C-alpha cells in the first residue's frame, strides 16, 4: 500500500484515501471539435506507459478531494515528487537523488541459458 503525499493537505496519507487518475500533463485540446481522428486517438488513447519515471494524476478522494500530480518510478513504485494541479511539470533531474535503483525481479532470477 503506497504512502502518498497530498500537496494540498501537506500530509503523507495511505493509498486507501486516494484514487489514481491516469497520466498527467495531457491537455484537452481547446479546439476539441476540430481535431483529426488521429489527434483524438493520440489525446484519448495513446500513452507512453513508461518503465521508469511516470507523471501521473491522483485524487485525494477520501481527503480534500483535490486532483494533483505526482512523479513516480514505475519500477520501484517510489514517489519522487507530488505537486498541485496546474503547476508546471517538474524537472526531476533537479530533484535530490533517491536511494539506489530497485532491480526488477527478472534481473535477479538467474541465467536461464
Amino acid at each position, binding site marked *: 500500500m503506497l504512502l502518498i503525499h497530498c500537496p494540498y493537505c501537506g500530509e503523507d496519507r495511505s493509498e486507501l484515501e486516494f484514487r489514481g487518475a491516469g497520466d498527467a500533463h495531457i491537455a484537452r485540446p481547446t479546439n476539441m471539435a476540430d481535431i483529426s481522428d488521429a489527434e483524438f486517438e493520440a489525446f484519448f488513447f495513446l500513452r507512453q506507459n513508461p*518503465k521508469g519515471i511516470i507523471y501521473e494524476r491522483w485524487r485525494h478522494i477520501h481527503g480534500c478531494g483535490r486532483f494533483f500530480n505526482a512523479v513516480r518510478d514505475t*519500477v*520501484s513504485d517510489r514517489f519522487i515528487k507530488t505537486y498541485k494541479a496546474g503547476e508546471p511539470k517538474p524537472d526531476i533531474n533537479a530533484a535530490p537523488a533517491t536511494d539506489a535503483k530497485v532491480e526488477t525481479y527478472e534481473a535477479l532470477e538467474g541465467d536461464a541459458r
Partner: protein
Amino acid sequence: MQKYSIFAVVREAMRGNKGWKAQWTSPEPRKEYDVIIIGGGGHGLGAAYYLAKEHGITNVAVLEKGWIGGGNTGRNTTIIRSNYLYEESMDIYEHALKLWEGLSQDLNYNVMYSPRGVMMLSHSVHDQQSFKRHVNANRLYGIDNEWMTPEQAKAYCPPLDISKSARYPINGAALQRRGGTARHDAVAWGYARGASDRGVHIIQNCEVTGIRRGPDGAVLGVETNRGFIGAKKIGVSAAGHTSVVMNMADVRVPLQSSPLQALVSEPLKPIFPCVVMSNTVHAYISQSDKGELVIGAGTDQYNSYSQTGGIQIITHTLDAICELFPMFRRVKMMRQWGGIVDNTPDRSAIQGVTPVKNLFVNCGWGTGGFKATPGSAHLFAHLIARGEPHRLAAGLTLDRFRTGRLIDEAAAAAVAH
C-alpha cells in the same frame, strides 16, 4: 525430438532417468533471422512453434530477457474459457479453446488442460441479463455456455453458499463446461520444446534494447545486450513490456501496464471441483492439481512494472472468497505474487500490423492472455508469415482506437476477464 510417453517414462526410470535430453537448446544467436519474436512467453514461443510447424519458417529466434515463461505465462491463475460476448472475442478465444483441447497431443507434452468447467456467478438482475446475453450469443455462435439455477450451481460446486442471507445472494450462474485450467509452465516449455526441435532458436537472458530500422523505415533487426541481431520481420509479444519495446520503434500503443496480483493457499485435499468467478464480489478461484486454492485478485490502480502490489488488493479478494465460501476462513495463504498486465482501453487485445514495416505486435491481452495462448500464437504466426491478419483476428487491429470500432467486452458485459 525425444518422444514422451508412458513407455519412455518406464524406460528412463529403469536407467536412472539419465537419458532425458534437454527440452530445448540454448544456442548462440545467429547474425540474422527471418523472424525474431520478442518475448518468450506462451504467446511468443507458440507463435514460433506455429511459424515452424505450419508456415515452414524455421529461421526464427525467440528473444527473452529473462527465463522463458517467466512473465505472465508463469504468473497467472491458468483459467481457460471462451464464453465472451463479441464475435471478435468469441472467434479468438474459441479458436484457442479448440487448440487447448488437443494441445498436449500436438506438442507431445502434457499441458494438463483440464475442462473442469468455469462457472460465473450471477448476484443480481443486472448480472442475470448480462450472463444470459452471453449464454445466448455463445449458443448461437456454437460455443457451450449454459445458465444454471442456484441449486444447479451448488450441485456442480458443492462448497458454494447459495443462501438468501448472503450479502449478494446468488441468483444463478453461467457455466462453460469446456472451460477449465491448464498447467502454465508446461505451456511455455511444451512450445519451447516443439519450436526448438523444429530449429527455432530460443535465446534467454537476451534483452532487446533497440529496434534498428532501414532508410525505408522497415525493420532491420534488434539491438540486444548480446549485440545486434538482424531480422527480416519482428513480432513483438512482450505483454506488460510491450510499450517499452514499441517505444524503441517510435510506435505508441494504447496500453497501460499495472500489477495484477494472485495468491495460493496451502495444499489441501480435493475440495473445489471447478473454476468459479464472481464479478460482483470480485473473486476468482480454482484448485490446482497440487491442492492449492488458486485465487486471482485484482489490479492495483496505478501503472507499475514492479510485479508486486498492495496487500489491500489481496485482502479485498479474500473478503469475497470467504463471503462465498465461509469454510475457507481457516485456510491459509501460502504465497502471493504479481504480474504486469497490459490493458487496452477496451480491454480487448491488439494483434496486427503496425505503422512500421515488418513490425508486428501482439499485446493488450490484459487479464485474459493465458486462455488465449494457443489461439493468439497460432494467429500471430499467420500474421507474421503472411503479413496480414487471419480472418479470426481481423478485428483486433491497432487502428480501431482511431476509428472507434472498439470491442468493449468490459463495458458491454460488466464481466472481468
